[in-house]
């Protein structure tokens, strides 16, 4: 059992939890995730370790409520217990002194980017951060990023904060005006795909963090398989980060939508059970591609 020490409502789709998990905290590296099962009947879902504190023995999870499990997760309060958390899992992000790095985060993707930013800054890299979202109130953790980033650019679909547009616009400018050594993008699959297409002609090394459906997260089931440069890879142990230019994004999108009907059924049942008390604002994104 794992105890929730703090709970914060970040915006009306996103919550964060600080959880007591000393062993995971002391082993977590940038790019790692955990698999969480809230209760006996719950699903095992992967969530990135958005932050960790070895001294306090805590990890922070940042999650967007887009379906039954994440919605139910949002009901957790300080002092509540989570049945199972396993980790840290996944291959850590390759961190070294690159020079100038650009991090591109869409929506909840910032959960993955924050520890990467922290680690890159420790290695004294210059890091430009581009944060994108649909609108101003969906920008997550802007202050925390501002504290560490060398530069930060905010961009929204509706222009309610920062520039109006999509993340590839400022990214192109940064790449063309400066000697960028590596780009990392985390967010909706379509966004990561657009970043990959943008950086390809520049031959700029680009990493993306993939979010296929997972079950146990330790390389034993193959649910999370993706095609990378024509080869099958298990994202939970060989990823979740891969070279963006090698990813078969269309296949990933297809596989993410595999359980769409069951997910809708599960959410429907859950909504009935809690009789309107549980709002579900995030499910506008029907294929769940906004996840991460």
């Amino acid at each position, binding site marked *: 059992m794992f105890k929730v020490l703090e709970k914060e409502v970040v915006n009306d789709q996103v919550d964060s939890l600080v959880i007591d998990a000393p062993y995971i905290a002391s082993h977590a590296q940038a790019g790692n995730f955990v698999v969480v*099962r809230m209760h006996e009947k719950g699903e095992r879902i992967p969530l990135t370790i958005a932050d960790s504190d070895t001294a306090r023995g805590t990890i922070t999870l940042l999650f967007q409520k887009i379906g039954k499990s994440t919605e139910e997760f949002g009901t957790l309060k300080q002092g509540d217990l989570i049945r199972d958390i396993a980790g840290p*899992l996944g291959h850590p992000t390759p961190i070294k002194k690159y020079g100038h790095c650009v991090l591109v985060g869409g929506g909840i993707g910032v959960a993955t980017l924050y520890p990467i930013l922290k680690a890159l800054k420790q290695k004294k890299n210059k890091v430009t951060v581009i944060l994108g979202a649909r609108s101003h109130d969906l920008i997550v953790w802007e202050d925390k990023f501002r504290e560490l980033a060398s530069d930060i650019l905010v961009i929204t679909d509706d222009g309610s904060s920062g520039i109006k547009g999509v993340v590839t616009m400022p990214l192109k400018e940064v790449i063309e005006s400066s000697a960028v050594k590596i780009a990392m993008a985390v967010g909706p699959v379509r966004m990561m795909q657009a970043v990959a297409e943008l950086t390809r002609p520049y031959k700029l090394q680009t990493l993306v963090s993939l979010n296929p459906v997972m079950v*146990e997260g*330790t390389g034993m089931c*193959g649910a999370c398989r993706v095609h990378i440069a024509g080869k099958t890879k298990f994202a939970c142990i060989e990823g979740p980060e891969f070279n963006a230019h090698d990813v078969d994004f269309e296949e990933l999108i*297809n596989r993410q939508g*595999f359980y769409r009907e069951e997910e809708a059924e599960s959410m429907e049942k859950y909504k009935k059970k809690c009789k309107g008390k549980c709002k579900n604002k995030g499910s506008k994104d029907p294929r769940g591609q906004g996840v991460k």
Partner: protein
Amino acid sequence: MRTRDPKKRAKNFLEVSLGITETQAVKEAKRCLQCKRPKCVEGCPVEIDIPRFISMIREKDYTGGLQVIREYNLLPAICGRVCPQENQCQGGCILGKKKTPIAIGALERFLADYEAAYGDAEAPVKAKPNGHKVAVIGSGPAGLTVASDLAKLGYEITIFEALHEPGGVLVYGIPEFRLPKKIIQGEIEYVKSLGVEIKVNWVVGRTETIDELFEEGYEAAFIGTGAGAPRYMSIPGENLNNVYFASEFLTRVNLMKADRFPEYDTPVKKATNVAVIGGGNVAMDAARTALRLGAKNVYIVYRRSEYELPSRQEEVEHAKEEGIKFKYLTSPKEIVSDEKGYVKAMICDRMVLCEPDPSGRRRPECSGDEFTMKVDQVIMAIGQASNPILTHSVKGLNLWGGGYIEVDENGATNLPGIFAGGDIATGAATVISAMGAGKRAARAIDSYIKSLKVSLRKKRKPSAAK
């Protein structure tokens, strides 16, 4: 052996085999010739004294009979159900030469079930602690055996298990209709009652490394992490929706209880026409699970002939009774997608058998002829590979054949204090062979730790003299 009605059982997950009655057991026991040099014992990987426990069944001393088995085998209720007896004990039985061999597995199961139902087995007495700590990694049959054998000698044992439930393949792989979960729970409770602590959600190599375990005071470690990683064919269409690897399909149903979705949160796709690729136990389990989830037609697609099927014979018989269809000499070549990215059909090669390969089985080759099966789900059950997380995290550990751990006959690896056994050392094998490896490793760990004590004493002496 009594079984449930095939028509009814194909729709539920209740145990198929009902075991034998007391009268049947005694009658069967009386058939045994009590051979002087029993061939059955040679066939059993842990060499249970089979004639002895059978003679006790004759005398209706069931507790005594079970005690005989338990000297060799920690999990009789499980082995009686899942051992490939026809290749092991029963394959050796002298009576099998002319007629039917003694139903040794059924007798073993009878004793275990009888004891569980009527026995007044006292709680085992906890051994006096000897002050030494041993870490066991993985809670499959290998790990459980090492843990209980060492606990009985007074060691303080912690089992570290990556999943949220202990039991290994017994809980996430083998389905309820073949091995009810409550039997495994019973066995795990027994192991705990010996004083063994089980830490779940503990991915050794990630949550903590082996080196850190040694720093915490564990003096030896046993690795029993199994061969859980699925193999696949790399044919076109393998990543379409509704193509499952058997491990995922079975994990969803067995561990996550997806057959009870939406009561349980984890879903599994139900399909109408299902092709399962492979001919082993895993393939049979996947096929019969798909049937129970409501499929109309389930095919076992196997590239050799019926004669070469590696599965337990009983499972093949049960599968046939339930209506599973067998397509032999057939190998998938491509899985075809519908317009939405889901499986629509599978193109297969017809195979012919050529001269035997090194394993002695005749090698299949394409005949050049192909045909298409209309299916909406494909489940790959073509074998498992080694579990990578732990082995990759231990520096200097000698491995063989793509990630299995190299061990000597006692389970010792090339690194001092680190032992291994079960599927992670042998490649995918059987429950009983994993347990046998656990038994040998437990003995080796005990003498290793005793030798440490001796060498420590030797080291201390000169300094004490000063």
